[in-house]
């Protein structure tokens, strides 16, 4: 298997092993509640909302960073996948000039 295929299968693995396994969780607030008076939330990520550092110095450091990030926000399942995600990030890391395919002008670039 070449490295592109390997990366593709790692993404698929992550999707099936973590994302889909976790589906059904109410991660997004989409319920329309006519009886409530407000949908405002207090800041959900106060540790990152102002400023912070991301430790990508080594793959291990980044694993640790992700683990802590998801433990702090109560996402144990994602914290357990920190090693796989960190490894994926290191294999995906590309030059900024070889950027992702062109962003379609008809969609809002969200990621």
């Amino acid at each position, binding site marked *: 298997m070449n490295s592109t295929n390997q990366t593709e299968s790692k993404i698929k693995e992550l999707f099936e092993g973590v994302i889909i396994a976790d589906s059904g969780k109410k991660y997004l607030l989409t319920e329309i509640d006519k009886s409530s008076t407000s949908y*405002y939330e207090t800041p959900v990520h106060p540790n990152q*909302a102002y400023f912070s550092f991301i430790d990508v110095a080594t793959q291990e450091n980044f694993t640790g960073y992700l683990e802590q990030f998801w433990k702090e926000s109560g996402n144990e399942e994602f914290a357990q996948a920190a090693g796989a995600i960190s490894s994926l990030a290191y294999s995906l890391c590309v030059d900024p000039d070889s950027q992702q395919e062109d962003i379609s002008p008809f969609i809002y670039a969200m*990621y």
Partner: protein
Amino acid sequence: MNSDQYILGISAYYHDSAAAIIKDGVIIAAAQEERFTRVKHDPRFPVNAINYCLEEAFIEPGDLSAVVFYDHPVLTYDRVMKNCAYAGADSFETFSTATKSILGIKLWVDKHVKQAIGTAGQLGKVIFAGHHMSHAASSFYTSPFEEAAIVSVDGVGEWSTTTIAHGKGRDIQLLQEINYPNSLGLLYSAFTYYCGFKVNSGEYKLMGLAPYGKPVYVKEIYDHLIDVKEDGSYRLNMDYFGFLSTHKTTNDKFHQLFGGEPRQPESAITKKEMDLAASIQQVTEEIFIKIARHAKKITGSNNLCLSGGVALNCVANGKLLKENIFEHIWIQPASGDAGGALGACYVARHLYYKEPRIAPNGKTDTQKGSYLGPGFTDHEIVAFLDRNKYVYTKYSEEEKNELLAKEIDKGKILGFFAGRMEFGPRSLGARSIIGDARNSTMQSKMNLKIKFRESFRPFAPAVLREDVNKYFDLDTDSPYMLIVAPVKEEIRKPVEAHADSDDMIPVINQIRSALPAITHVDYSARIQTVHQETNPKFYNLIHAFRKLTGCSVLVNTSFNVRGEPIVCSPKDAYLCFMRTDIDILVLENYVLLKEAQPKFEESENWQKKYELD
């Protein structure tokens, strides 16, 4: 040893990459990458803008105290993971694309910065400022206020789509937020897409189209698409949107609600699009005003700072101003993501380094008119003109303005290039196309022969600050063209009522006021007040025009053709001049007449290069 504190801010990888630099809290430079690469809304790492900022500050990369990025990629990835977990198996394509883009590119800002300039500053690593905190900082720290409510509304940044904060002295406290997928910006973009315009640039067209229509779909929008509370908080009904699991903002249910498939780009605009535009504009304004009222309530402030892409909706800003909820409002002119670069600098200075803020004077902002981009010396301009054997005449400032005033009065159109380029999406008289606002054919001539764009699109007036109240129902500063106000009753002209139809042309061609080129169909105008202090060159030109004609208003539109980034250099300006029906090019005090120029040979297929926006 250099004890000055230089901070470089970067925004990149979404729609509008940019860089900004501040020195001891004072803005030195800021520019969008698109102006250098000539690729509209260029999302790539802004290496040209960064180098320009360093040059303008006259420093080496090693002199930087810190480099700050305006967005947190791990927080964004967290949102993508949870979005896909929520959406299920259908979202694999979204997950795969987002994973490659975030883990493959956005995460590695530190590395990209070091590759580009050899260092991440004296701190040795990049600071990640929150996306909405960067928006909030870009408006509060440049505002005239010591204390203010801060509202930022955009499509989405990390998780947040709407935030309310309170700024006081050097601090900003985030108070409340609305998170993805609930987004006023995405709702507006859904209509932009459905009406056949490009997202992130077409919103401005939709806003311009709104006054041609009637808000007949408002009830549908409130009944089906969004639930809004009295305090302005809201949720979208995701049954009608496709963006959780596909690349499309809307879905079939949305299309059915409004009677069919989205309009094909560049096909004829019909009454339906006009009515949809009017409807989403009204809903946006109503929500925006409710959010502002709530921000006032929870902060108790008399001042409001606005930012985020939705704050570029100057019609909504004008309505908000009229509500008198706040005594003073300041809007960051680079309210889109480009402005995040500037905000990120301030996040580092005031929140990370805890440096005190330079005391605001309560009256003027510190954005310097937003003239924060490259400027060119006489020496550079002459070298460019001589090298290419272009024909020009040099005038004194006064002679030049007298001559130009006469030419504008005769109906001539100028490409006006003066001083440092604007930061943000609007041309404010540094890189502008200028014409006579009194001229009844100016709007269609400028749209069709200069800009090559849709004929319905209105133009903005630039007016001397002291005269704004003579022509418009506005008596406040609007130096950044971010406020829409009505043309005064006294200069309006009665028009025949036109039956509702798909044909906009008879409506567009009506003469609505003594300033027909800048009077929109609903008698509104998107006003730029011109101030001697921030742009004396542009001020003096309008002043000379007033002396000659008694009129202190000119048409001001961005110096570009449709799909092209605003011109940056004399070369960009010359090319735009020769490719269009612009009559006279003004490069500082050097004046070039079209008919005197050597035969122009096109070296590239620019119509293809500048895709329609």
